[in-house]
């Protein structure tokens, strides 16, 4: 059975339909890259999966948890999928450690010492254990993004959604974030990432999804999709003519 099941999902903003019937099943441990032009609906799809956007039609489930528009179901779903954002979205009034501990203590009611131990372990994992007491504005963009990853991991999700997580970073900081993601992938974490890092997608991902005008236009293993694109749209997107 698939871990994430996306069935006939449709989403409109007013009269504009941005997702026109998406079907996608993701198996446990898969690393999926979602590529496509801006406006193709790739970010919207990702944000629908954990309910940041409501869908108009179709269904989404993650490990049996259905996406329904009430707080109880949403919470159950969000405990299974973590999300990492382009703009990091760390809590500026909390230290790095506080950022990683907050949702554990508030949402899961984990006792503080235990939450702190988990936070330190997760920060260790992203190479930032020494920044436990620093504030987000004292860190570089790459470090902030790694804290955001640690914060999501501390909730022990079974899948992570990454929404263009390196797009706001200076070029020399991209690799440190991707190295963390690469490690997660190697450890068997299920990942769905919207990305513009084609080389990374080629090296790390098990499948590439090309979206075009609100539809899944082409899907396949990276070697197929990048070497032998089937449609003119994908050829154009990849810069092959």
């Amino acid at each position, binding site marked *: 059975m698939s871990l994430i099941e996306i069935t006939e999902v449709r989403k409109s903003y007013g009269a504009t339909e941005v997702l026109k019937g998406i079907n996608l099943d993701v198996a446990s441990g898969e690393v999926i890259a979602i590529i496509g032009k801006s406006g193709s609906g790739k970010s919207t799809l990702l944000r629908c999966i954990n309910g940041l956007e409501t869908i108009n039609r179709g269904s989404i489930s993650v490990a049996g948890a259905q996406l329904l528009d009430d*707080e109880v179901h949403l919470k159950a779903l969000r405990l299974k999928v973590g999300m990492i954002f382009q703009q990091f979205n760390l809590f500026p009034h909390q230290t790095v450690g506080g950022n990683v501990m907050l949702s554990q203590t508030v949402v899961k009611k984990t006792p503080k010492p235990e939450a702190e131990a988990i936070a330190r372990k997760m920060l260790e994992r992203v190479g930032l254990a020494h920044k436990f007491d620093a504030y987000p504005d004292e860190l570089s963009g790459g470090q902030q993004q790694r804290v955001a990853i640690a914060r999501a991991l501390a909730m022990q999700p079974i899948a992570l959604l990454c929404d263009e997580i390196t797009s706001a970073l200076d070029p020399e900081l991209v690799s440190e974030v991707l190295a963390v993601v690469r490690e997660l992938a190697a450890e068997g974490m299920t990942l769905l990432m919207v990305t513009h890092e084609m080389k990374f997608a080629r090296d790390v991902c098990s499948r590439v999804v090309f979206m075009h005008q609100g539809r899944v236009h082409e899907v396949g293993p990276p070697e197929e999709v990048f070497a032998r694109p089937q449609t003119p749209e994908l050829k154009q997107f990849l810069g092959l003519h």
Partner: protein
Amino acid sequence: MIEFTLWDILRNLLLATRWTVVLSLVSFLGGGIVGLALLFLRISKRKSLRSLAKYYIELFQGTPLLMQLFIAFFGLGLFGIDVPAWLAAGLALVLWTAAFLGEIWRGCVEAVAKGQWEASASLGMGWLQQMRYVILPQAMKVAVPPTVGFSVQVIKGTALTSIIGFVELSKAGTVVTNATFQPFTVYGLVALIYFALCWPLSKSSQILERKLNVAHRNH
């Protein structure tokens, strides 16, 4: 004719100042509590509650405080309810202050970046948890300078209650003037006392603004 010394005048004004201070504190604290309730209505997920708070705020911001005082004082009297001046003054000022504070604070909550809502939601927090742990701590930082700044308006607003006969600093000024026939001296002192109450608040609002801006330099 009785001679009044400057000290006689000042002493009577200062005694009345107590009521200006008490009324200001009651308005500010009461207005703060009602304002907080309005804030939660104003940003609630239910449209009916949002509209209710919006109409309340528009009504109290769109009419002069003086009219609100008159209505509280005379209006309720029409229904046979005998409202003493202090009650009408306190009630009208609390409701008026609440409307402004609620709206100031709504702006502060909406100034918190949308990404903060999204990040906390995706970590599984419910609405109240988001407010309590993520949004309000950040909004409060923004809210301090305008809130302190508005408290100056509240102090000056209490002067209007003299018209419905509540004896605070302004009313005492009128009474003392009528007894001494020294309007310039008396109202000059009244103005100085208001200034002594308001200026430290204005100043502290400016200092807080600068301080909090410094804390935000890296964002």
